[in-house]
């Protein structure tokens, strides 16, 4: 049967709207879902997708894609590839499956919303196919992960993760709920297809595929690069939507892009950053995370934004600086708090790996070297207790990730700072000025308590580390541990230094006396929750803060310590009450 070319008939099936007269257009496309805003209602009739496809083409092409993906899987079914994969690489896959599988399903909901409330028939058609794509992605991801559940229970988190309150997942939900289902469909079209799908997902589904193939995980590489072919098409819903916004309300477009770009970049630092720079075996790393980000985001994505008339986000320089910092800090935190994740973090700091890190990131050794040296000394001294946490990091009220974002201070040093905001009598803490500003602009939106806040509010019982692990859904067979059983530490020949001495055996999290504070010690990389008592002197407060850092990640010194509160050093014999330290406030402790 001779077929007409698609363009000879496509407009007949694209322009299928009519003007409603027996139903109220505002009721069928309510403002709170469709939010045309400043874009005139009839302007949507000009909406035209650039990446065209008919339904029959869709069915035919998708069938080919599925057959190809499953053919590779079937061919490898009886191979021993899985058992020969590097344990660190497997963590890339476990992290992916857990953080992505059900997010794909949420993306289906986003597409379905656009299919229902998009204000152009052609847009709704594209979104229907996009919704089918996301169902495919969710099912592919779960099916591919399922093969390994009998071999390793951590793969079960492909399905379980989003049903838990595990901290990385809480951060992922904070991003995805807002991006995909939290607002109207016009905003969603900019947040999801534009920022996320033409920007960041390329790192996880195409960039990481090159590391996967090099690492021997052919099946995974094939699956994720196939998934992204769907994305490349349905993400183009953003183009005509953005053109209309740029014509009628460019301020709205720029804000949505700026907000979602930052929040996506924060989550990708803990999703893709350490997968590329630490878990992928050294010999198989095609590029560093920063190099992949420069390729896909700084060059490709930003150039596309500019072609539509958008500017780089207002915080651009801070984002660029963050490419040297964020994922290294988050990796260190994930490794140190490894029982709280569902994969096995690979420390990635053998001498050869550190040499690679220093070559790719000139600041790495200065900021992270001393911290890892302390950890390595503890491992080699058999002091494993000192390599494990006894409290929780303080989590940012916007991105829900630990406050571990070094930023440049005015004297040129890179410091982790607390960005606090007191509003309506409550003090919020943020990892950065940008997260604080985004929170402020959206302060009337729904805000979910961070895990730190839930702990302080008594939502987590018992209020100790075991209680927290249970609250996050982590069972002993799943809790993470070092991927290589610490044998990488034998690479170092360091005599025992940094022997940890704790003031006493009690754990701060068990104390029932609250003045919980947001605290940091010296050059440690993260803010942590520490509980002090009203009658504690500053010398005692210093010890309590120090115990979670000194000897764990900070080299002990035989020097006095000082407490800084509200920017000033405080006398050692003053009590917390006398100083005026209140719950949730920030305290900094350092050697004199």
């Amino acid at each position: 049967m001779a077929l007409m070319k698609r363009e000879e008939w496509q407009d007949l099936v694209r322009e299928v709207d009519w003007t409603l007269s027996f139903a109220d257009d505002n009721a069928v496309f309510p403002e709170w879902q469709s939010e045309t805003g400043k874009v005139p209602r009839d302007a949507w009739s000009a909406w035209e997708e650039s990446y065209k496809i008919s339904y029959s083409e869709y069915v035919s092409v998708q069938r080919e894609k599925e057959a190809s993906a499953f053919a590779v899987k079937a061919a490898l079914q009886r191979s021993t590839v899985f058992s020969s994969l590097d344990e660190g690489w497997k963590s890339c896959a476990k992290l992916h499956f857990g953080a992505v599988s059900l997010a794909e399903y949420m993306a289906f909901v986003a597409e379905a919303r656009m299919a229902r409330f998009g204000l152009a028939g052609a847009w709704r058609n594209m979104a229907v196919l996009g919704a089918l794509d996301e169902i495919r992605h969710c099912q592919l991801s779960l099916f591919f992960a399922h093969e390994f559940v009998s071999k390793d229970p951590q793969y079960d988190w492909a399905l379980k993760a989003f049903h838990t309150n595990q901290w990385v997942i809480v951060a992922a939900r904070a991003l995805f709920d807002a991006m995909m289902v939290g607002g109207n469909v016009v905003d969603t079209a900019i947040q999801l297809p534009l920022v996320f799908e033409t920007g960041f997902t390329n790192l996880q589904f195409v960039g990481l595929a090159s590391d996967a193939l090099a690492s021997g995980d052919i099946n995974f590489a094939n699956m994720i690069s196939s998934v992204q072919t769907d994305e490349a098409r349905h993400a183009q819903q953003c183009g005509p939507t953005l053109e209309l916004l740029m014509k009628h309300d460019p301020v709205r477009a720029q804000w949505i892009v700026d907000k979602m770009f930052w929040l996506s970049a924060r989550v990708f630092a803990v999703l893709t950053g350490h997968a590329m720079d630490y878990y992928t075996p050294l010999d198989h790393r095609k590029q560093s995370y920063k190099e992949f980000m420069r390729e896909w985001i700084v060059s490709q994505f930003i150039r596309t934004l500019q072609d539509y008339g958008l500017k780089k986000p207002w915080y651009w320089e801070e984002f660029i600086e963050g490419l040297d910092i964020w994922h290294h800090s988050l990796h260190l935190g994930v490794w140190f708090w490894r029982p709280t994740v569902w994969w096995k973090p690979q420390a990635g700091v053998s001498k050869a790996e550190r040499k690679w890190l220093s070559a790719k990131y000139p600041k790495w050794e200065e900021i992270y070297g001393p911290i890892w040296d302390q950890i390595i000394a503890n491992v080699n001294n058999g002091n494993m207790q000192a390599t494990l946490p006894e409290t929780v990091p303080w989590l940012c009220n916007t991105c829900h990730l630990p406050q571990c974002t070094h930023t440049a201070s005015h004297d040129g040093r890179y410091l982790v700072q607390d960005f606090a905001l007191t509003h309506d009598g409550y003090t919020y803490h943020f990892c950065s000025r940008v997260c604080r500003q985004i929170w402020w602009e959206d302060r009337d939106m729904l805000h979910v308590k961070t895990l730190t806040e839930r702990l302080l509010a008594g939502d987590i019982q018992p209020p100790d580390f075991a209680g927290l692990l249970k609250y996050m859904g982590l069972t002993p067979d799943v809790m993470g541990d070092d991927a290589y059983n610490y044998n990488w530490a034998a690479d170092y020949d360091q005599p025992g230094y940094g022997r940890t001495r704790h003031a006493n055996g009690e754990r701060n999290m068990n104390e029932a006396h609250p003045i919980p504070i947001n605290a940091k010690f010296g050059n440690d990389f993260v803010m942590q929750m520490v509980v002090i008592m009203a009658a504690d002197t500053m010398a005692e407060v210093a010890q309590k803060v120090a115990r979670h850092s000194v000897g764990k990640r900070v080299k002990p010194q035989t020097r006095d310590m000082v407490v800084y509160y509200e920017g000033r050093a405080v006398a050692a014999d003053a009590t917390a009450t006398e100083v005026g330290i209140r719950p949730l406030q920030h305290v900094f402790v350092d050697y004199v």
Partner: protein
Amino acid sequence: MEDAVGPVLRMCDELELVVRAIEDDNPAGSVEIIDYGAYVRVQRPGFLRLTRASLERHVGVGFRMSQLESIMSAFAGRIRTSSDEVVWYFQTTNASSGENAR
């Protein structure tokens, strides 16, 4: 490369054949190919074209333009598709070419 546009092709049998088709459809020597293993970037500044005729010649008779979707994980620039060709382009470009005008 400034103003780079073009497809990002995924690992598959036809990859090298598609690259040859692209080279046929664009000025000689102007196409840059960067191989990352699981994906290959094929790009040139400001405008790049791929026709079904060239694809049929290299990949096989009966190749439909829509089949390119299975091979293309991403692309740089904007895209315009039809049954006979796909073009990648920027509307604002420093590349001295009138090819990208609609």
